[in-house]
């Protein structure tokens, strides 16, 4: 029960913290967590707007997004582990094989 502006502001704050984390961190694990954070910010918006419009469609989308986030994090963490096995690092700065 918050005003739409409060919801938009808070979820955009959460989203921009996620973007900042993706842009500035070196650790691939923290980058994955920031992506999860951005998905959560979007979910927060869906749920709150569902509350505001009085329909449950937003709840359904949020539930689906949660499932997609779980799939994404499973693949992402597997990639991190595979990367660590091959290159002994998970710093994104050190992974520049495609640099040419």
């Amino acid at each position: 029960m918050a005003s739409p502006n409060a919801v938009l502001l808070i979820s955009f704050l959460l989203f921009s913290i996620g973007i900042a984390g993706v842009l500035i961190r070196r650790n691939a694990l923290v980058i994955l967590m920031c992506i999860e954070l951005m998905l959560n910010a979007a979910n927060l918006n869906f749920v709150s707007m569902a509350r505001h419009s009085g329909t449950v469609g937003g709840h359904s989308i949020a539930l689906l997004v949660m499932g997609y986030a779980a799939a994404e994090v499973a693949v992402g963490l597997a990639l991190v582990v595979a990367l660590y096995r091959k290159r002994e690092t998970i710093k994104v700065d050190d992974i520049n094989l495609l640099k040419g």
Partner: protein
Amino acid sequence: MDSFLASIGQHLFVIFGLIACASAAVMIFSRSAVHSVLAFLFAMLCVSVCYFAQQAEFLGVAQLLVYAGGIVVLFLFVVMLVELSKFKEGGIFQAQAKVAIPLVLAAFGLFAFFFRQALFAAPAKDALTLPAEISGGLDVAANNAQAVSRGLFSGWLLPFEILSVILLVALVGAIVLAKAERA
């Protein structure tokens, strides 16, 4: 005192949303990856309280189960697997941090400028509803899980089925990617 508590109860969403933002900031600025994961867990718990405050009880519990119960544990295991102590030396931030942080702050400032009114006002008036042919006499506001399931399986059946296939693909992909190579 009662009115104070009532006003806190009305603003639970804003309060816990701001706590979630604070712990997200702790997450991206902490040096140790384990601290980052714990701050992430705290942020997810706060987001779930926000769901409860928006009368999305089912989603709040799902958030607790999926994030606090599954994803954070997965992250902790990977932190344990990849021996982060090796990476302590050197900065934790990339070179573009000097550009990225002001840009993000500017974006948030612009957004906040346009949506600055009424941060603590005007709660929504109606409880949740469903179209009459779907709800079939169900008290939607009191039975959140049933209402969500009816909405999900009537309007969102195809995305739901696609999600089940995607989860299967992710499962196989994760196993293939993370499996040790046979030398």
